[in-house]
């Protein structure tokens, strides 16, 4: 039996442990690569010590990568938890709804049509708009109180459309090398990212996260259904728009610099429920931290796993995420099979 007091304490312990894990992984991430550095050397180089080469490696090559890994992992975990809270549905997540795929299409369109340089704000801007449109259309198509099956079918349709549209844009692209470049970028990677990428993505991610976190208590009222939430004084229509906006800003900003990295938003809240409980409001922060842990760990793994060419981190998260998704489907089989809302 968990009394609220101990539940609170347990949540604090989990959050502290996750923060510690994030810090350790960030340090490891700064030390891993062609030139291996010990944590001491990393800390030294980070604060201006060590050789010039070490400082450049840590501060200019690996630090942006680590920062993006943390921020993107966190916003994906947070977006997943927020969507699951909004829809009262444990299978909701940005990638199953086609949000990253649509954001990628927006970004590719801007690149392929030559409207923008890869390092201008037009890129995340287009990604955010496309992500917003995709989630908005999805929720319109699925309707209020949509069941699992409806949401997932609508998500499948939207991600297929976004994928096809992206392929078309690459098809029509005049430069075959640009197309290849885009194809690799779509796989999702944090490699060779600079501080320019950080400044490009971070404002969007930060605003998106702030919007989602500001709505946290409203998610709890939604546990009782939309009508009851409304009777408790929650403007449900406005809440929906804010969540879509927050997810679109975060996912759009993330995809614009790192490509499509999937399944973190689905997995992170699930890992936290056994430890924190099901309260959608209290899951947001732990899910964000778990997302950061997962993505930075995956990004370390792609650098450690021996292979002839480098593995993209987006590929790795999907390879781990999809079997997990299958496991969740098995667990939710009754609800899916029955088609109940």
């Amino acid at each position, binding site marked *: *039996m*968990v*009394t*609220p007091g101990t*539940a*609170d304490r347990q949540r604090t312990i989990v959050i502290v442990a996750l923060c510690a894990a994030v810090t350790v992984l960030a340090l490891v991430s700064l030390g891993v690569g062609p030139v291996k550095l010990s944590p001491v050397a990393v800390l030294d180089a980070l604060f201006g010590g060590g050789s010039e080469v070490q400082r450049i490696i840590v501060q200019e090559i690996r630090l942006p990568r680590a920062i993006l890994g943390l921020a993107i992992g966190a916003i994906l975990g947070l977006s997943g938890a927020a969507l699951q809270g909004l829809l*009262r549905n444990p299978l909701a997540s940005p990638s199953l709804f086609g949000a990253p795929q649509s954001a990628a299409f927006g970004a590719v369109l801007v690149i392929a049509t030559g409207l923008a340089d890869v390092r201008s704000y037009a890129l995340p801007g287009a990604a955010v708009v496309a992500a917003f449109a995709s989630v908005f259309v999805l929720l319109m198509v699925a309707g209020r109180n949509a069941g699992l099956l409806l949401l997932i079918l609508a998500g499948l349709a939207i991600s297929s459309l976004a994928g096809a549209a992206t392929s078309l844009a690459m098809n029509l692209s005049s430069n075959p090398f640009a197309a290849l470049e885009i194809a690799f970028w779509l796989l999702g990677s944090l490699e060779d990212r600079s501080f320019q990428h950080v400044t490009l993505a971070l404002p969007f991610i930060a605003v998106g996260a702030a919007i989602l976190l500001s709505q946290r*208590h409203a998610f*709890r*009222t*939604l*546990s*009782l*259904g939309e*009508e*009851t939430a*409304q*009777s*408790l*004084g*929650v*403007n449900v229509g406005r809440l929906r728009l804010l969540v879509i906006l927050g997810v679109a800003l975060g996912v759009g900003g993330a995809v614009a610099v790192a490509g499509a990295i999937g399944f973190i938003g689905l997995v992170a809240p699930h890992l936290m429920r056994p430890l924190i*409980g*099901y*309260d*959608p*409001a*209290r899951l947001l922060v732990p899910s964000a931290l778990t997302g950061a842990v997962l993505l930075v760990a995956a990004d370390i793994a792609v650098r450690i796993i021996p292979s002839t060419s480098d593995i993209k981190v987006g590929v790795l998260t999907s390879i781990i995420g999809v079997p997990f998704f299958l496991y969740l489907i098995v667990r939710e089989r009754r609800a899916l099979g029955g088609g109940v809302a």
Partner: protein
Amino acid sequence: MSEAAILVASSLSVNLGNRVVLSDISLALSSKHLVALVGPNGAGKTTLLRALAGLLPSEGTIEVCGDALPSLALQERARRFAYLPQGHQVHWPLPAKDIVALGRYPHGAVDPARLSPKDAAAVMRAMQATDVVALGDRRVTELSGGERSRVALARVLAVEAPVLLADEPTASLDPRYQIEVMTNLRTAADNGMLVVVVTHDLGLAARFADVVLVLADGRLVSQGPAADALSENIVADVFRVRTYRADYQRETIIVPWAEV
């Protein structure tokens, strides 16, 4: 009755799509009354409850505690109406205590883990009234149907609103829990609330309500004390049933008996 009326509707109509669900409903309901809203399936009972709470757009006017409903902000409405929907679904296995604490959300107590002493006291009063204090830390999804309905009832009592609207709170409960829920609502009315209950059970309506509203095809066809509002003729017209009637301990007993 109108001098103490706290919920007044005049010429209320609701259209959903092209369909007229409610037309020209006028009523004035007072504090300390338990009002039963009855009518055949599809008569518009739930729609009327939702419209009164401002959860549906409607034509006509609604006043609650002297203020026009549209003039009230969403949060202020939520403080005046406690609304218990049918089926009281809960999507996540939250502790019962947190569900009850959501009743304080309209009062600004958004976090059940951090209630002010005033909000915590209201939650405790509500949980005592429905006898669910011992269930506080259990997950609602693990509770029996009867226990869950008491938790749901505690949630609306915790709002401590002047008006409580309950949609079929006795549906799918065994007789003992039906009586328990109605007794709780009766006590809430005696303590000063206006309680409006949608029910299909004419017997419970006659036994517990001060006023019965009979709805048929979106119109209010009769209202008043049970013995008048649910007269033999009206029940035969509206529900197509004949009733058995008796008086027991000075209360009216009405039992649907046979088809007309």
